[in-house]
């Protein structure tokens, strides 16, 4: 498993993939991320990120016959155990950082 930290987009793509539970491909991931964050992301960036995460062993993909438009094959991504572990690691790191900051951020004394 890689010890390298993930980029923001990769992080978001991993989370969206987890949310989509087996229905993750570039279109659904883009829609999910844009809906959840309210910001536009480049489809190409997501497309490449999915494959890069697969290379890193955090996702795995499967071709579904004739799932796409006009009956073409479509590649769906899902989490690998390593990917889940990575997300846990990142959550742990971020939560650690977030701890005790609620007051400052929400303007409470």
């Amino acid at each position, binding site marked *: 498993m890689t010890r390298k930290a993930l980029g923001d987009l990769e992080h978001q793509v991993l989370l969206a993939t987890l949310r989509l539970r087996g229905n993750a491909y570039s*279109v659904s991931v883009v829609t999910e991320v844009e809906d959840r964050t309210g910001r536009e992301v*480049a*489809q*190409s960036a997501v*497309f490449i990120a999915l494959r890069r995460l697969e*290379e*890193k062993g955090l996702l795995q993909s499967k071709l579904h016959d004739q799932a796409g*438009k006009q009956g073409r094959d479509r590649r769906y991504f899902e989490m690998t155990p390593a990917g889940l572990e990575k997300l846990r690691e990142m959550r742990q790191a971020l939560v650690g950082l977030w701890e005790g900051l609620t007051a400052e951020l929400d303007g409470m004394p």
Partner: protein
Amino acid sequence: MNGFMTRLVRWGLGEEEAREFFLEMDELYHEKVGSKGTRTAGHWRRRELHRACFHAVSDRLRKAFSGRRTVGSTERARSRSREALGVAFFDELTRNLKFSFRGMARRPLLTGTFILTLGLCVGASTAVFSVVDSILWRALPYPDSDRLALAVAYNPESGIRRDMSAVTGMDWERVRDGASPLRAAVFSDWPSGVNLSAEAGAAFVQQQRVGKGFFRTLGVPPFMGREFDVAEDTPGGPPAAILSHGLWSRTFQKDPEILGRSIRLKGEEHTVVGVMAESFRSHLDADVWTPLQASNTGEGGGANYQVLVRIPEGTLWEEAFARVGAIDANFSEDEDASDRRYGLVSFDQALTATMRTPLLLLLGAVALMLLVGCANLAGLQVARSLARRPEIATRQAVGGGAGSLFRQVLTENLLLGFLGGVAGLGIGYLALGGLTKVVSTQFDTWQAMNIDGRAVMASILVTAVAVVAFGLAPLLQVRSLDLRSVLVSGYRGAVGGGGHRLRKALLVVQVGLVTALLFSAGLLVRSYGHLEGLEPGFDPEGVLTVQLSLDDARFSTGEDVMGFFQETLSEIEAIPQVNSAAVALTLPYERPLNFPFEVLGASEEGPPTVTSAVYVTPGFVKTLGLPVLSGRNLDAADAADATPVVLANQAFVEQYLGEIPAVGARLALGGNSEVVIVGVVGDVQQANGGWGSGGPVWASPTVYLPAAQAGGPFMQTVHTWFTPSWVVKGRGDPAQWSQEVAKAIHTVNPDLPLARVASLDEVVSRALARPRLGAAFLIMVAGFALTLALVGLYGIIANEVGERRRELGLRMALGATPGGAVRTVGMSGLRLVFYGLVLGAALSAGVSRIIVSVIWGVTPFDPPTIAMGLIGMLALGGAASFLPATRVGRMDPSRILREE
């Protein structure tokens, strides 16, 4: 634009992935159309395409950068990385180039030396190759020039000599009548200057005399008009001329009406029948052609003609040779007396026969220099790779594969080779300018000399060979590196036995090559020294020479010529600075007339033999300061109607008269006229007329005839070949009164152009220019190669001192004297020089076989040359070895040992 971006995305992602991407992008677009409308979705699509370009291309580059080592690579990932291989290659190349540039910039001195060395070697060889190529190897500028040949007469026992292609008028007639269907034409290969009178004034122009059909045989008809016809080419026929394009343009302003017009050439009217094209070149660089009017008497009685033959399409060379060989070449009644045959020599080889050896020698010298350069560069590279061993070992230890190292070193060599090659072309281009000027004074350079495709190809080849040669050594080093020993022993201790041995072997080769070069240069210098040191036999001090062409209708009789001589000489002698003046057919150090003669009244009458013959006016002996050894000088009393007399020189007396007393001896000159020797004068050096000694100048047996007794027909014939010289001895620098002399001649005849005005010193200097050029060139080449080898030796020893610091320090600490340590190191250098000398001696023995044909007055086993070479190499090699070795003596053993 969209198409281009689509292609970029495809390139970035790969075909398969790109197709998937575009499908999914289409899907999202349709979703966006549904949710946000066509307009917004359209904007999005355009933006997305731009972003896709960027992401796809950077993704591909990222993959290329991270190499093929993808973590958890699936089959898909592997195939993708194969696609990226092309990128990876360029990427690695860029990286290697960057690395090489940085490495070169870090060592500017080494890099500069490297590029300059290669540049000089490649430049010199390119320039010399261009010259040699243009003279020896480029096809003659005539259609199917490989079908042109010269018909020659030869003796089967001695074989065909390419430099002896002249035949007689009888030979020409036999070949002409017997060689059909081969086309043949006769011409004179003797360049001669003639006088042209035009409205713009008198001019001295170069004439070539050719027979009818000459241009048709060459394959180049006149650009305007026609060739000479039968009538014009018959003795006594109407005078006609064909102009070169240059002369037509310069003197006649490209007059389109020139054909049929009359021009005044050689003192009489000639009808212009043709003009040659601008592109036409002939090896004699003629301005005008006149009919040869070949015959088998007079000029044609001797071997003064060349017979050009064109072998027709479809006829093999062998068939043509057999056809010519079948013609009977024997004129003698006695069949056994002479066994002559006719044969063919290819035209270009005949033209370059005398230049081949000297030019190939020059080319060989630069080739040796190039080899020394390559060996030197290889040595440098080995030294560098030895120095870089720890770095390379480290890189290999951390996983840099041998392949990538190999490519890195190769890139570096190719870059150095490329830069050196470019520098070489630049240097070659500059050198060629100078070289052309020097060479064209010594060789017939009628073809343009430039760095053309062939020369560029040759230099690319040479550079490539050089790159391979010097690149190979360090590559072997990389391959054979023993990581552990390098890393364990650290930066100092690694004993690169193989590398050092290789470097030393390269140095031995260099010393060997340099020795051969120095040996050749030494022999050429000694030969030139011999020629320079020959006793000229006259005093050139303050002697001016002026040439005038008398191949002219105004000087057709003996009286015309003598009248002109006497008038001009009395005008010249009236100049206050002038002491004496005379006219001679040829000057010392120039080629004299060859003349057949027999000694009359000798006890055994041998066959007719040949002597040099010069007609002179009585003042000649005094003007040149020749000693009269016995008898008397010529004087005014030796007139046309007096007893025919001659002066003979010492060499003539020694070679031909033997026991016969010289003064009073009788000769039959030129077959019939009987003359008496009235005096013997000292020898002078004269250029070689193709017989006797092989040297360029020698004291040839010579007779001096009084001009007054030479006779009209004789003069007319010799004046078509030779341009007589006025020799004038005066006080002070001849340059100061040469104008006066020219004026004096023009007082007598204002319509005669001066062919050449030069001091006698210049004439002598010009005669020895070719050997001087060869010697100077070889000194330069050998000197450069020597410098390279010495620098290489110095580097090796300096390196050895650095690497053996600890060992030498330890030795000195244990009681070795500093002097002893210096000797140990220095002697290791001298030993290399010694091995090099042994190799050099073997090479020199080979070289001497070739060089023997261009040296005179010295044998190849010339003790002074060999001694100088040996002592010089040992002294210089010793200096280059011991100079760096003295550093050992200055070492402080205790400090060195503390460093541990």
